[in-house]
């Protein structure tokens, strides 16, 4: 695949996402056919660009925090001084994912109030496991001979981490981040139930008011966003096998 060609597919999805976001109004005919009974068939409480922006913001903030926390914890648990915490770290990450995000929201709202904060916490916890698990797998999967040579040559712990472990584990770590972010783009929609306005809004509002057209609009944009981001990740230079 030539350098330019590799970006064709993700850019195509991205273009489709933008067209759908800005041009949803043009599809009024289609949605009127889906939802013939309703007076209004295009979700209008907020424009889709704003909703998309907020959706992306929530997912990005949660992803950055999950990466810092997840990669950091996995690195710490694979150092000599942190080995004792290895089982604990992987267990905590698993619990984070088995705990349903809706339950996290329910628990977080009384403490953090309505709005964006509880959904960020829920996404952070939910997205941690793939990152932690893959970072651990990536670091533990390095050829022991390579690690032995690195130490035997006189590299310090920090040099080994930066120059050997992270570069070699990068493809696996990146795959974990990709899974985490893609899942969370879909999961973020439930944030609409606690007042974090994002692409989940049309869906929730559509369910509440019995307006299928709204649901389709929200779902369509979330789906396109997830596919675009996933496709971008798959084209990152590190994501392929090295």
């Amino acid at each position, binding site marked *: 695949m030539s350098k330019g060609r590799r970006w064709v597919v993700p850019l195509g999805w991205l273009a489709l996402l933008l067209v759908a976001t800005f041009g949803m109004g043009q599809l009024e005919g289609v949605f009127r056919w889906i939802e013939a009974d309703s007076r209004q068939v295009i979700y209008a409480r907020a424009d889709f660009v704003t909703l998309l922006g907020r959706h992306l913001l929530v997912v990005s903030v949660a992803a950055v925090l999950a990466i810092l926390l997840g990669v950091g914890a996995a690195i710490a648990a694979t150092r000599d001084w942190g080995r004792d915490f290895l089982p604990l770290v992987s267990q905590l990450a698993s619990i984070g994912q088995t705990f349903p995000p809706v339950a996290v929201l329910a628990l977080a709202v009384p403490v953090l109030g309505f709005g964006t904060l509880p959904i960020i916490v829920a996404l952070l916890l939910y997205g941690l496991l793939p990152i932690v698990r893959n970072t651990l797998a990536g670091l533990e999967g390095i*050829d*022991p*001979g*390579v*690690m*032995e*040579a*690195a*130490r*035997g*040559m*006189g*590299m*310090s712990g920090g*040099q080994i981490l930066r*120059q*050997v472990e992270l*570069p*070699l584990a990068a493809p696996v770590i990146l795959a974990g981040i990709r899974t985490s972010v893609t899942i969370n783009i879909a999961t973020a929609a439930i944030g609409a139930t606690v007042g974090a306005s994002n692409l989940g809004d049309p869906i929730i509002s559509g369910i509440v008011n019995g307006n299928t057209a709204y649901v389709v609009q929200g779902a369509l944009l979330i789906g396109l966003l997830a596919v675009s981001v996933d496709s971008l990740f798959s084209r990152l230079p590190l994501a392929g096998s*090295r």
Partner: protein
Amino acid sequence: MIDLIHVTKRFGDAVAVDDISLSVARGELCVLVGTSGCGKSTTLRMINRLIEHSEGEIHIDDQQIRAFREETLRRRMGYAIQSTGLFPHWTVARNIGLVPRLLKWPKAKVQARVEELMALLGLAMEAFAGKYPHQLSGGQAQRVGVARALAADPDILLMDEPFGALDPITRQSLQDELRELQSRLHKTIVFVTHDMDEALRLADHLVVMHQGRIVQQGRPLALLREPADGFVESLLGGEDRGLKEAALLPVSQRMLPLGPRLLARERIGQHASLREALSVMLWRHAERLTVVDDDDLPVGELSLRRLVGVRSDE
């Protein structure tokens, strides 16, 4: 140069290395040999502190190794292992330049040193510098591993079965190259192997280990002639010992000056081993060989009686 004084290593309750004392002189190639699990690698790795010894003292140039920072100590010693441990995401040139870069040599000096080492180990610069480890054959990868170990010109080289995974022909040519290299560089080398032929071929000083202890050490010929016990004897090849000894002795040691007799038809070089001479005799059904120098000029003769060590000839 390297002194181990009553060194013991325990892993939990298990004793991996049991009260060993060993001195390796500067410029000497010391081979640790023994069956698998007898503590060779542990001994080697205690010298560069990849493993901390439990008891005793280890000295480098009369200084305790614990007086150095671990990284400083290791950068002073080359380390080559069977699996090579080359960094798969780095090119050959970058792999070789690792330790000089750790020591913060200027870029140009690192580059020059990498070129020098690749030439020394017969790796053509244009063909190999930009290659990645997975593109190399086993023998080439091991050459790169040795080049990397030699990169910062350390006095000491630690080698853990570096040729153990190679086919016999590649292994032998790398052994010959190591001897050749050593005759020029005079490093102090500790070399671990379980292959007695390799040990005999390489060693100035041979150390036989068994169950964490040193059972005998000395010059290879001395061990062959007087093994301390049945274990050393069987490790040295039992019935094959005669052939192993013959492989260590050059023809020039047993040949007689040219006599008045006609030259024998079959020839052998004066640097060949007695074992090779014997093989030629067996193969050619010849009792006498003419010994020739590097220019193929006759310099002496070798009879079967002389070869097997019967003193008076005729």
